[in-house]
């Protein structure tokens, strides 16, 4: 038994394009071609600067932690929890971890930022 669906859907009418279709498409394409491409953000120039800033921040954080620890030990009445926190941060190298996290996620963010 032949299926009517095949016959009905195969014999669909053909649409005749309007006489101006090709002209309209080419006008749109020419307009697109004449529009200057958007200037991409100069990530390559910015990246070295960002890297320097990140290293400086990590170094600053490390120095600050060391300084805080020294001051806390010297002045005495600093809460015990605070001193422990500073020791812990210094022990695990928090500054360098921050730098590593930045280095790991910055490229991903750059890829998203540069996508059209």
């Amino acid at each position, binding site marked *: 038994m032949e299926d*009517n*669906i095949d016959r009905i*859907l195969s014999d669909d009418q053909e649409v005749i394009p309007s006489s101006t*279709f*090709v002209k309209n498409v080419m006008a749109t394409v020419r307009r697109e071609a004449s529009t200057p491409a958007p200037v991409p953000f100069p990530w390559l120039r910015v990246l070295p600067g960002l890297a320097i800033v990140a290293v400086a921040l990590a170094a600053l954080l490390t120095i600050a932690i060391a300084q805080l620890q020294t001051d806390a030990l010297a002045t005495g009445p600093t809460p015990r929890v605070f001193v422990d926190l500073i020791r812990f941060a210094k022990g695990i190298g928090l500054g360098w971890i921050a730098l590593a996290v930045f280095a790991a996620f910055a490229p991903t963010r750059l890829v998203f930022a540069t996508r059209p």
Partner: protein
Amino acid sequence: MSASDDQIDVEKVLAGDVDAFEPIVRRWHRPLINLAYRFCRDRGRAEEMAQEAFLRAYRSLRQWRKEAAFSTWLFALATNVYRSELRRIPAKAISIDEAREVQDTRAAHASFEGEDRNRAVRELVLTLPTKYRDVVVLFYFHEMNISSVANILALPEGTIKARLSRAREMLHSKLPHVLTTRTEEY
């Protein structure tokens, strides 16, 4: 129209000759408009969607990898454009319930034949879930070629066959009298 014509024109466009895109549009505008029409059943909208497809094709010509035929690449791109457009603004088609009502009424009067019936069936295709609709539209547009549809939708041929079969069942269940009882006419 030959594949090498497409390749020559694409290379000219990529070299900066915008006018070389015109022969591409002339070669492919009828099939692209007709494909769009089968997705929306509206001539004006079909032209708008086809125009958008050509513009996207122009923008992404560099992405055509020449191991696939230009036509396959163009139809795949156009199909994606049409599907996106239809997600944004769905085609105005009769609903399944409306189709059933129409069928019941007209079958009762034995006058639901010819173009009315065919139109109802074609519009009913647009009410199918999109993954079935796309396969049905492309399959009948490409003269029932499973392989072409599989290439355009980037799906295995087995998946296309399964979806087509399921889509046919759905259409049969929507309009059972129309699609099964009059086969002796043909």
